[in-house]
């Protein structure tokens, strides 16, 4: 915390908070109107904290317990349509159960903010982190952002409302945080004052789209083939505009909170002269940065990019950042069955973004840390090594599974 920030009364305290606690703090600070709940690990953490805030008289909102995730997200969607700032959240299989409501929230262009505590999809029943759950809305008009630390989870939730509710955007936003590694670990977090948050986050105003008896509108009617394309096109334009709004929101956030978010879309770590860069999302960042430090001490020109915003995908910015290096390795905490080269989702998106790039680096993929499996510093240094040696990589080695039992070639990453 900077001295300057304390003096200005921007932060009220420092506290040891888990990732879900931090999100709950952000919800309180954003002064939401409707909180819709259905228990699932790790969203239960947010529910507990919010319930305590309300019980302690620290916060007031409609706290609605739904009969399932589908209803839970319907409640959030409908609340948002009448002008209430709404929050909902789930993870893994629960997030999927809400899918119909999720798709309608984005096509109805309602700026609900949702927490996805990333979790592997059942079956088998699993609680560990895997990014496939949040990614399932990637083509539906949701904004998706990954936070890697508890502080970032708090900040990002506030920023998510600022971006989602902007009249130029009005799209729902999923804040994704790694189940277990972030949701259930505690870190010292700076909690802003309500006044400061008010300066940053204007009140929610849906304008002439607010559903109210005095403003008779019909939302989401049945349409035929002569309307659908125009409506999709509107969605697309909003997603494009979101890029500019995200830049603006981070600038405003920095102005109020003096936080350091140099590039809203991704953090670059020692990439200036890097020959080999790994790209990842979420908590793998900690291990990845440590690996970079170790290898740098050995004189290796390596760097790491932590991607924050996955939708809209910052293709132009990444193209620019990666044009300087020769080898890129993607760490996918997800998978895309049957996709090109049988790689991960991030890998294929990133390769597509680089397709028209003049200085195309070699791109390889690492499927790692699925279903909550650890990714160690040694694993990451191993990935750096394999990426560095991928100049004449064979098709079969484009995508490698890290630490999967039974494959000598990819088992463990340690050199």
């Amino acid at each position, binding site marked *: 915390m900077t001295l300057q920030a304390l003096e200005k009364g921007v932060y009220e305290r420092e506290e040891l908070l888990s990732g879900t606690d931090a999100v709950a703090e952000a919800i309180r600070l954003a002064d939401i109107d409707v909180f819709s709940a259905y228990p699932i690990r790790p969203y239960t953490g947010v529910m507990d904290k919010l319930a305590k805030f309300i019980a302690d008289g620290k916060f007031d909102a409609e706290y609605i317990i739904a009969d399932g995730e589908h209803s839970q997200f319907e409640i959030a969607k409908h609340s948002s349509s009448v002008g209430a700032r709404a929050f909902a959240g789930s993870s893994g299989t629960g997030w999927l159960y809400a899918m119909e409501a999720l798709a309608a929230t984005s096509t109805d262009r309602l700026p609900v903010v949702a927490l996805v505590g990333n979790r592997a999809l059942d079956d088998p029943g699993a609680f560990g982190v895997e990014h496939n759950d949040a990614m399932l809305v990637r083509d539906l008009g949701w904004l998706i952002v990954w936070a890697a630390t508890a502080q970032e989870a708090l900040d990002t939730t506030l920023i998510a409302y600022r971006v989602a509710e902007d009249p130029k955007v009005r799209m729902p936003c999923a804040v994704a945080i790694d189940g277990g590694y972030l949701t259930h670990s505690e870190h010292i977090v700076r909690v802003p004052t309500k006044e400061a948050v008010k300066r940053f986050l204007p009140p929610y105003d849906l304008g002439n*789209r607010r559903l109210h*008896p005095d403003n*008779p*509108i*019909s939302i989401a*009617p049945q349409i*035929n083939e002569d309307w659908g*394309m125009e409506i999709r096109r*509107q969605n697309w*334009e909003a997603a494009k505009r979101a890029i500019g709004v995200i830049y603006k929101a981070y600038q405003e956030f920095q102005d109020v909170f003096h936080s350091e978010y140099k590039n809203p879309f991704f953090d670059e770590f020692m990439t200036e002269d890097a020959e080999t860069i790994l790209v990842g999302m979420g908590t793998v960042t900690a291990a990845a940065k440590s690996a970079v430090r170790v290898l740098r001490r050995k004189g290796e020109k390596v760097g790491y990019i932590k991607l924050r915003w996955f939708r809209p995908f910052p293709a132009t910015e990444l193209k620019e950042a990666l044009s300087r290096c020769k080898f890129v390795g993607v760490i996918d905490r997800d998978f895309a069955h049957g996709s090109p080269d049988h790689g991960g989702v991030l890998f294929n998106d990133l390769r597509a973004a680089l397709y028209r790039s003049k200085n195309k680096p070699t791109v390889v993929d690492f499927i790692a840390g699925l279903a909550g499996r650890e990714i160690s510093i040694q694993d990451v240094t191993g990935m750096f090594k394999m990426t560095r040696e991928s100049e004449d990589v064979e098709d079969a080695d484009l995508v490698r599974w890290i630490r999967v039992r039974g494959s000598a070639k990819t088992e463990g990453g340690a050199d």
Partner: protein
Amino acid sequence: MSSLSQADVDALEVGVKRLEVNYRGIFQKSLAKRITKDLVYVAHSEGKTAFSNGRYSDDPQRNGIPCANFAHISDVMSEEELEGVASAAMDIDKANVIVVLDDTMVKGVEPWGHYGNRPINQKAIPGSVLLVVSKRKPEELVRFLEQKTFTYKIAVLPGIASFAGLWYYRDDGTDVRVLGAIAKVAPDIISLDKSKEYVKKTYGANKVEAVQQGYDSVSVREVQPTEGKVWPFAKPILPAWNNFEEGIAVPAIKRGFKMGPKGQNRNPNFKTGTNRTQRPIVRFDICTKCTLCWYECPDECFDPTQDGLYDINYDYCTGCGRCAEVCPVKECIVMVDELNFDNNNSPWESYKKDSQTYTNWAEEKKGKTRMMPSPVTGKGESYQEVAKPVPIATVKGRKEVS
């Protein structure tokens, strides 16, 4: 690469015959499906290529809403070629035969996925045939049609509209009679012999006679460019993507109510009057003001008036018959053939202007036969002769509210 000229596009169409079957949603769904299906089979048995489809935007159907099925037939193209020119479109632009399974649709059709009241002969081209199932003379139908700049034909197959329901098909022979009629008016599309052969094989020998009967009983006459009326329908201009509200939010109708005709605010862009085959005619003079018609109407078509009577907005009345069913006064609300009427004017206003004239007019329109359609009775239509009309009630003794 050069793009296609209009001549190129027209050349693609050469040899394609199209039939449009207009029908009432739900009530004639199975009937219409059967006709287009039969057309394809008969054409196929003649060595032609054919396929049929329904207008996708008509689904999910509602009772009585005008819908359409199509059959596309060619004797020169391969199936793939035919589908190439015909299967990618949701609707057709022109038809060689336009079948109308309920004659009240000659007053215009407003399918629920489209805009405005369109003429039933919209897709007619020079030489095409409008084939109507009706007990009326061609002249009585032609006067409702849109005036065309060219000559085409109207054919009348004597009969009443065959109505069934969602879960049952009414096997009254209308399907095969229509097939026989098409063989007569468009022998270049299907032949009588092949139609009979197909019907015998598919539905049994006892249906073959009905094909012949349809063939024999259909009457055809030309429609000249001077006939019909100028149609006010203009295709709406749809806005560009950046020219309407985002979030699929559509301006709705502000709540509004005042006493009298058309006093309730209703959506001017979504009228439902063409769903109607019969309209309720009210004898205001014997009305007891019990409110049941107004209360029970599923489409809120009744407008309260100062004197306690209820006016009907025919632009929105779907002709469901519910008001006639619940009205406790005999002969007060009666459902009458829609083709007896020329406009949707307020009946209450006519009554207020001259109650005697209105009542005489209403009785004349009602005629002597009362029909309840099968969807209402659940046991098929029932007909009843009225011995003598209910005498006109004098205003004396009635408590009129001013």
